[in-house]
């Protein structure tokens, strides 16, 4: 195991600055109630003018009257933490936000994929800089050691044999202890972590809170379960346009962006998407909802877009579109279709499920169905359009026609009876009872039909099916 710790020393400010054009104006984040506003964080220009966290807003304004004042937004910080965790999740499945101002990720198992550590480190730094976050980056054999070393180092990678030496040199006040504890150690004359580690355990346990010893143990590599980051289970993304989109062809581009994001999202979770909803927002009308359901979990962007576009063609959007939102909360595990390695496959060939998906998207969900038999004597109910389970039919003594008329019609042709009658009497318990005498009759031209009459009578006949 090898852990990287990324500390963000200016997290809140960077979160604000990355959304703005670069400028040389001092900027300060303010927090606290209205009567006691204080500075929460400052940018470099403001720090150069003497502003620092904890100052009262009056003092800060006296130092830099031209500064920009921004309200500190804890929710935005939390969102940024999620963003960075999701970003780190692309490199490692072991990502934790257990430390307040840092992200730790296990990198030992990712080295095979992302190259040796110097290459990997450069890539991490480059992407973080692109995202707009200043950072310090340290690698160590365990997450706590990495976090502690990141307090005093940047760009250091420590191996297990050198860990004790490196940790031992860390000043006590930077070792991650509570301020009171660090102060107490300092007054005991302990300057470095090595001296703390050399103290007898029972003495430390008696004189300090238990988390001090736990912290030291964790630094030395005792395995402590780490709460790992889990990517969110819901995909919800919205795109707003500067102008209204009037033509459905104009929606294809934003749709493609959203569906690609969705595909990347489910792929990162190693899942698929079975159902998602598109919401088209309008300025003057109620939003249009479009539910897209698939037969099986899918995660291929091209296929998802194919289905979404066919669905979009079939609906009428309420008006010009101002924004599109894509919400997916049904994200089941993805089971890739198993294929035969040696099976010849024509280019452009589809699996049967993909084919049914395409037909459903164009013709409608109910227009494509399977066939199954059901236990019921009433002919209309002896079949189901399902495909889920196909019970073996109880041995039918009587012949049944290959074609059934969904609505029986009066029989007009001249016929003679071949077989019959067969009494069908059933369904009195559900109010849809049937009492009929069925006959198999043949017309002069050889057509064989399935007809019925009222019980005990031989006509007039109703035509219910064809033997074909």
């Amino acid at each position, binding site marked *: 195991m090898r852990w990287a710790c990324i500390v963000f020393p200016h997290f809140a400010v960077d979160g604000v600055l990355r959304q703005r054009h670069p400028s040389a104006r001092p900027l300060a984040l303010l927090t606290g109630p209205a009567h006691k506003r204080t500075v929460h964080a400052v940018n470099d220009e403001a720090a150069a003018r003497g502003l620092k966290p904890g100052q009262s807003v009056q003092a800060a304004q006296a130092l830099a009257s031209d500064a920009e004042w921004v309200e500190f937004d804890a929710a935005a910080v939390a969102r940024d933490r999620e963003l960075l965790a999701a970003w780190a999740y692309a490199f490692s499945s072991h990502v934790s936000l257990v430390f307040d101002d840092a992200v730790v990720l296990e990198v030992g198992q990712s080295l095979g994929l992302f190259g040796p550590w110097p290459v990997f480190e450069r890539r991490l730094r480059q992407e973080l800089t692109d995202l707009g976050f200043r950072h310090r980056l340290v690698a160590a054999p365990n997450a706590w050691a990495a976090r502690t070393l990141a307090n005093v180092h940047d760009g250091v990678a420590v191996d297990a044999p050198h860990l004790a030496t490196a940790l031992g040199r860390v000043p006590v006040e930077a070792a991650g202890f509570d301020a009171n504890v660090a102060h107490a150690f300092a007054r005991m004359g302990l300057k470095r972590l090595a001296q703390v580690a050399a103290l007898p355990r029972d003495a430390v346990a008696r004189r300090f809170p238990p988390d001090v010893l736990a912290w030291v143990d964790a630094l030395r590599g005792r395995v402590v379960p780490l709460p790992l980051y889990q990517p969110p289970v819901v995909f919800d993304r919205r795109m707003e346009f500067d102008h209204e989109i009037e033509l459905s062809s104009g929606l294809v581009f934003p749709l493609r962006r959203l569906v690609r994001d969705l595909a990347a999202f489910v792929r990162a979770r190693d899942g698929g998407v079975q159902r998602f909803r598109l919401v088209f927002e309008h300025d003057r009308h109620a939003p249009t909802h479009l539910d897209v359901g698939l037969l099986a979990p899918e995660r291929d962007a091209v296929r998802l877009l194919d289905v979404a576009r066919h669905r979009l063609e079939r609906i009428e959007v309420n008006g010009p579109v101002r924004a599109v939102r894509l919400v997916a909360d049904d994200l089941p595990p993805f089971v890739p279709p198993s294929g035969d390695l040696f099976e010849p496959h024509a280019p452009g060939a589809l699996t049967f499920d993909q084919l049914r998906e395409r037909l459903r998207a164009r013709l409608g969900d109910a227009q494509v169905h399977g066939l199954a038999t059901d236990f019921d004597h009433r002919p209309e109910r002896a079949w189901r359009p399902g495909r889920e389970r196909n019970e073996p039919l109880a041995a039918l003594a009587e012949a049944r026609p290959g*074609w059934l008329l969904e609505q029986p019609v009066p029989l007009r042709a001249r016929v003679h009876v071949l077989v019959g009658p067969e009494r069908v009497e059933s369904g009195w318990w559900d109010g849809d009872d049937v009492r009929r005498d069925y006959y198999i009759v043949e017309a002069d031209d050889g057509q064989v039909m399935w007809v019925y009459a009222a019980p005990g009578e031989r006509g007039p006949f109703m035509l219910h099916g064809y033997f074909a």
Partner: protein
Amino acid sequence: MGAVVALDRLLADRTVWRGNAPPRTEAPAQPTGFPALDAVLPFGGWPPASLSEVLTACDGVGELALLWPTLARLTAARRPVVVVGPPYLPYAPAWHLAGVALDHVAVVRADERGALWAAEQCLRSSACGAVLCWPARATDQALRRLQVASETGQALGIAFRPERVADNPSPAALRLRVQGNPRRVQVLKCRGANPPAHSIPLPPFALS
């Protein structure tokens, strides 16, 4: 004389049509399940990866019974069968009794245009063993599309059409006419051979 082509190859490629040519046996055969009919057809059954037409004067003279052995064989081999735009409800108990594995049957309901589109998609997809469709008023061009789609997707395309189109030319590789009273099937056209002069009797319906 640079363009000398071996006669054998010309004949083997079937670019030259010969009456009573021996059938080419590369593609797997698609027997109809009726030995008397298979015996007169040049491929020993349905022409593989092609469109075939079944013409009837009216519904219910045995057009399904002609197909059921084929459908049973395909679905038993887990090859899906799609029924596109049937005129009536395919009645599951009878299809089941005929040996068709219903798990591998899908029914598509659509209007005439939608059905043509769906049939072409199914044939082209290479996912289907057979596609049944009812293009009653289809143009020659539409049938040609279905024929090409059958070749592309290596699927068996079956088009059920009314008897009155028998005199119109058709791109289908095989055209059969099913007649009742007595029940028999007549080969109107089969690519690769002369159609036999006599019609082939079909077994009567199993009615009890």
